């Protein structure tokens, strides 16, 4: 190069010159062929460097980083704490079913693409198959040429019984039994009465609560049924819920779906005990249970532990009512729970325990381990606490350990109740219903797993 100016044309091309230097280059260039050639060469080279190959991260990269951190105790602790805060914030803003639904969606998102695709396929295909095959009975030709219907073997073994012959379920008896109801303190009984009256007074004209919310209506219906109330408010709520069921049997997200399904099942259990007509309600329940089964993940869960626990409760109820196909999902759920990695968190431990007890699982060591985690984590603060109390009370009631902290929870909930009978700040129908369900636990749920 003949030009002696020794200009930094790289800095010029990169726009890294101060304005006065850049201006000097601009003025020099038209008169200098050497610098023009050099400029072209620099631009070409930098363009070439910029066009060298790049790579996209492999699909699993982010998950791999998280897995690598999984061995880091600090990360595990932080992840647990973050999950707890996340959960509390979501619950505070949207209700706990939103948390359960979110967890399920997160899980779907973080799953490898083929897993998510397979899950969508299975849910869609399963629902379609169920719709097409629910009334199908295989036929065989008899020697004389006529067809005769063949009854399929019952998948649930001895659970296979027509619902009409089901004996009174234990909870139906206990919810109306004076002896069982005497297990709650007079203060708690009074709080339950006031709370239910407050809720009934707020029922919408259409029969719903929460201005047409499936989860809120389902949980309030559960609180009413939990107290053995099957009056007009309960009937209107159940009728409204049935109108919200989709053709594939689903109600809302997995968590809300499970709550509504349990409410349908409990309502039917009462109706059977009364020898009332259950045909329409049974159809809705069978459809809801079938949807729940198609929505079960291949690992045996329903996403978040709370959603799993409530779906397990629904299938358990179906099995108790003698309906087809409810035992297999319970076994799959139990296999999942045996391996599930649950952190030291009140919600997760209680949900695990509730799910496990509902599957009929009775491994004392596992039950004891999770039960021991619940009590130290109970904190009588926070708006979302009532849903924790409900979960925790269900879990310890089912495992026969209500004495551990049942009285403590009852005292706190009675103290937290507002003078109008509600709970929550701001007042919430769903939180109030959850508080009632926690208070009703002693007579609402029979002990399933007796742990010494």
């Amino acid at each position, binding site marked *: 190069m003949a030009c002696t100016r020794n200009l*930094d044309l*790289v*800095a010029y091309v*990169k726009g*890294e010159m101060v304005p006065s230097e850049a201006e000097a280059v601009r003025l020099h260039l038209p008169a200098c062929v050497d610098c023009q050639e050099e400029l072209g*060469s*620099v631009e*070409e*080279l*930098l*363009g*070439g*460097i*910029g*066009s*060298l*190959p*790049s*790579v*996209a*991260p*492999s699909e699993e*990269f*982010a998950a*791999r*980083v*998280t897995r*690598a*951190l999984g061995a*880091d105790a*600090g*990360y595990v602790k*932080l*992840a647990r*704490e*973050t999950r707890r*805060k*996340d959960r509390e914030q979501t619950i505070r803003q949207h209700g706990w079913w939103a948390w359960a639904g979110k967890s399920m969606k997160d899980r779907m998102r973080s799953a490898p693409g083929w897993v998510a695709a397979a899950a969508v396929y299975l849910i869609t295909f399963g629902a379609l198959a169920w719709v097409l095959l629910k009334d199908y009975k295989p036929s065989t030709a008899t020697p004389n040429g006529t067809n005769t219907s063949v009854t399929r073997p019952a998948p649930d073994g001895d659970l296979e019984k027509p619902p009409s012959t089901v004996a009174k379920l234990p909870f139906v008896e206990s919810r109306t039994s004076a002896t069982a109801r005497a297990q709650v303190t007079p203060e708690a009984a009074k709080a339950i009465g006031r709370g239910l009256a407050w809720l009934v007074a707020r029922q919408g004209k259409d029969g719903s609560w929460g201005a047409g919310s499936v989860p809120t209506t389902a949980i309030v219906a559960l609180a009413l049924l939990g107290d053995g109330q099957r009056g007009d408010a309960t009937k209107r709520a159940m009728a409204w819920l049935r109108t919200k069921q989709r053709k594939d049997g689903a109600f809302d997200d997995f968590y809300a779906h499970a709550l509504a399904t349990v409410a349908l099942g409990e309502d039917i259990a009462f109706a059977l005990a009364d020898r009332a007509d259950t045909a329409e309600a049974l159809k809705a329940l069978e459809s809801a249970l079938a949807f729940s089964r198609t929505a079960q993940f291949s690992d045996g869960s329903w996403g978040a532990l709370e959603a799993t626990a409530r779906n397990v409760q629904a299938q358990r109820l179906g099995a108790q009512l003698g309906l087809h196909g409810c035992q297999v999902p319970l076994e799959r759920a139990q296999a999942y729970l045996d391996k599930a990695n649950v952190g030291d968190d009140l919600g997760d431990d209680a949900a695990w325990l509730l799910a496990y007890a509902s599957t009929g699982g009775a491994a004392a060591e596992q039950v004891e381990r999770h039960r021991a985690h619940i009590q130290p984590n109970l904190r009588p603060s926070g708006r979302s606490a009532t849903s924790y109390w409900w979960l925790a009370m269900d879990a310890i009631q089912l495992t026969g350990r209500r004495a551990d902290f049942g009285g403590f929870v009852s005292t706190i909930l009675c103290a937290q109740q507002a003078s109008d009978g509600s709970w929550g700040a701001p007042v919430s129908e769903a939180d109030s219903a959850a508080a009632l369900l926690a208070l009703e636990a002693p007579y609402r749920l029979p002990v399933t797993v007796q742990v010494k």
Partner: protein
Amino acid sequence: MVERNDTELMLDLKRGNVNAFNELVLRHQQPLINFFYRLTWDRQASEDSAQEVFLRIFRHAHDYEPRAKFTTFMYRIARNLWIDRLRSAGAAPKTVSLDQSAEDDDRKMSASLAGDEPSAQENLENREMIEALKKAIERLPEEQRMVIVLAEHQGMRYQEVAEVLDIPVGTVKSRMHAAVAKLRELMTARS
């Protein structure tokens, strides 16, 4: 929802929110992997190194002070890791082969090199040119190569390159100038 910037995410992580960390990984995985890819031309090794950088970021989050941009903090860790690896036995940059490049699914060639619909002959020439350029960059002294990668591939301003490498901006300028001069010389000698 308003997207939080990197500094806010780091401070959130410092306060104990691992979701913030996951967000940072998703946001920066591609440029970070490519930082190492431009130094090694080995995808797997690049992902391994990027993973290590993210682990170091997590472990040093409690020391993080928002004095510098997050990317400066991140690339400083990445550059230190690269230096460590160079120093360790057997971690010298790999020589690039044509076969290895051919395996790369995500390659891109700019229109300036490849044209819109290149003929087979043009493709071959472009490919040869890319390989020649890669090899030329590999022959640069390490400090010049690092400046080229940060300023050209990662698109950093000289000031940020200076902060990452902890050198004056003037030094970045002179290294960049020297690197381009050397590359032009190598590419001219090839042709």
